[in-house]
């Protein structure tokens, strides 16, 4: 493989893709959706008034900090047991039970337990905003990233409502957005880069130049990697507070990225023109994206069918690695994803070389 040729092709495609309206749309869609979620999930600068119930027998700097937060109203509960009923009665978004020695333990780095009640009668976005407020305030008070053991307890949780099982909506949305970014790469970006060379006959020029077929494939794949890293990187950086285990998250992202680039190479080699990409890409995207949605419990078979799609394992691995939950399930997900990636690349190699 000639690396200067590969880099020349990648450089050309990276610049050319920005001028391609369709490709540009595919590339910025995940950022647009992320922006939409940001608006829907209010942050510090866009917070609706929140009413919180707090029981802190010995007082706490945390409560003082919350009290000083604009748009936040604190209602004090007489006891820890009364906190839940106060949340329900006052229709507060949530409640906190702060242990007596919380501040001292926090200062000593003992990671004290803080129980937080989340009112499930509030909408998902209010809940998410509340969770973020507590997370940020605890870190702000302790001045360290992992200061306390936060125990989240759902109040008035509806039965059979799997959507609300998600511990944190942002931790559901981020994997979704990342898989959307990956899906755009696999379904649109890489296939279009390949198909356009065929359609405009520029592939003939490339194949009569010092570029070998392997150089061309590598150049296209690398362009997909560059754009996915760029968009995915932006999404990860702006949501960095959600990531508890960076090495595992990065490993999962890299595996997912290689997988979707392989999918893109297969799709690009099988399709002949832009119209075919337009027709089939949406279907491919939906298939890739579907497993990342929280189960809505339509039917059991539908949920099981999602297990047949490799991005299911990517989605699960992302959630676990981002949450820092290192279980055997995480390694199984990564192993399945790795196997699928090898399979996809074998398919891509066959599809691209089948015409000799």
């Amino acid at each position, binding site marked *: 493989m000639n690396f*200067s040729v590969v880099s020349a092709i990648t450089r*050309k495609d990276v610049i050319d893709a920005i001028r391609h309206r369709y490709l540009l749309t595919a590339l910025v869609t995940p950022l647009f959706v992320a922006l939409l979620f940001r608006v829907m999930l209010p942050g510090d600068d866009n917070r609706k008034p929140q009413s919180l119930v707090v029981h802190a027998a010995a007082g706490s700097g945390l409560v003082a900090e919350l009290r000083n937060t604009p748009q936040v109203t604190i209602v004090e509960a007489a006891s820890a047991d009364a906190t839940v009923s106060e949340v329900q009665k006052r229709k507060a978004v949530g409640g906190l039970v702060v242990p007596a020695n919380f501040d001292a333990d926090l200062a000593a780095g003992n990671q004290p337990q803080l129980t937080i009640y989340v009112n499930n009668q509030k909408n998902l976005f209010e809940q998410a905003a509340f969770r973020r407020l507590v997370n940020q305030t605890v870190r702000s008070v302790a001045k360290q990233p992992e200061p306390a053991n936060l125990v989240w307890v759902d109040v008035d949780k509806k039965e059979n409502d799997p959507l609300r099982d998600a511990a944190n909506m942002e931790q559901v949305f981020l994997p979704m957005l990342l898989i959307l970014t990956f899906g755009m790469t696999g379904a649109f970006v890489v296939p279009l880069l390949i198909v356009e060379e065929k359609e405009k006959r520029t592939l003939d*020029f490339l194949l009569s130049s010092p570029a070998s077929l392997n150089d061309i494939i590598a150049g296209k794949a690398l362009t997909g990697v560059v754009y996915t890293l760029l968009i995915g990187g932006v999404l990860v950086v702006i949501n960095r507070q959600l990531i508890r285990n960076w090495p595992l998250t990065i490993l999962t992202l890299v595996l997912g990225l290689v997988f979707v680039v392989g999918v893109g190479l297969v799709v690009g080699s099988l399709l002949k023109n832009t119209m075919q990409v337009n027709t089939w890409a949406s279907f491919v995207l939906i298939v890739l994206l579907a497993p990342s949605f929280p189960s809505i419990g339509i039917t059991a078979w539908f949920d099981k069918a999602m297990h047949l799609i490799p991005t299911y394992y990517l989605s699960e691995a992302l959630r676990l690695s981002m949450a820092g939950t290192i279980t055997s399930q995480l390694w199984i997900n990564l192993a399945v994803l790795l196997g699928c990636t090898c399979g996809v690349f074998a398919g891509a190699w066959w599809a691209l070389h089948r015409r000799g």
Partner: protein
Amino acid sequence: MKAIEVENLSRTFNSLRAVDNISFTVDVGEIFGFLGHNGAGKTTTIRMLSGQLRPSSGRGRVADCDVVAEQQRLRPLIGVVSEHQNLYERMSGRENLEFAARLYQQDMARVDAVLKQVDLLDRAKDKVQNYSNGMKQRLVIARSILHRPQIVFLDEPTRGLDPVVGREIRRLIVDMSKEGVTIFLTTHYMEEADQLCDRVAFLSEGRIVALDTPANLKTAHGKQQVNVTLNNGESVTVALDGEAAGRELQQLLSTGQVKTLHSAEATLEDVFVELAGRRLSE
């Protein structure tokens, strides 16, 4: 050493024999014309000789490289002008050439030199999608010579261009030849082949049916006669077949009534029709 050596080259697509056992050589610095109908096998031959398509059988050597076994060594030594204007339309003319320069690892200064050579320096920053057909064709030719190839394959370089642009392209081809580049040219235009080519090969249904200089082909297949038009509009044909012809011509000229006098040698088109059975434009 020959620039191109082809021995019993064939290419079959399923049951169709697109190129059927052709053999020829092209000298260094020669302009070699490859003429034939649509589907005669011209483009397939170029694709095989430029390493884009594997021959079904036979052997081809270009610039002393085997077209199958030594593709990577061959590619920097050749330039290809496809029958399609296969440029990156969203990129400027300069960007197209800069990309080619990176592929061929050429100095960027060469880009300006080539743009100047094809008279596109002023429009170098414009996107190719805003170029006229003629400008695009000049850019394709510029790209094919950017890396100073020994051999350039030109597949129908003047097809669909107006006469003025066609003449400009022919000038570029002559300039390349003067610089010692071997030219392998396919064309539909017999006058173009006659004007440019040192030798031409006629291809019909994948086979070479004639190969010689245009002059030899015309002489061999033309009629040896002179057509004389007199002032009164009468036409006289004089067969050039012996002393009697000389006397007859002298007699006509001495009357002072001769308006025009034309030799009736065949055109390349006539020769092609005779050998291939139909006109190129059919």
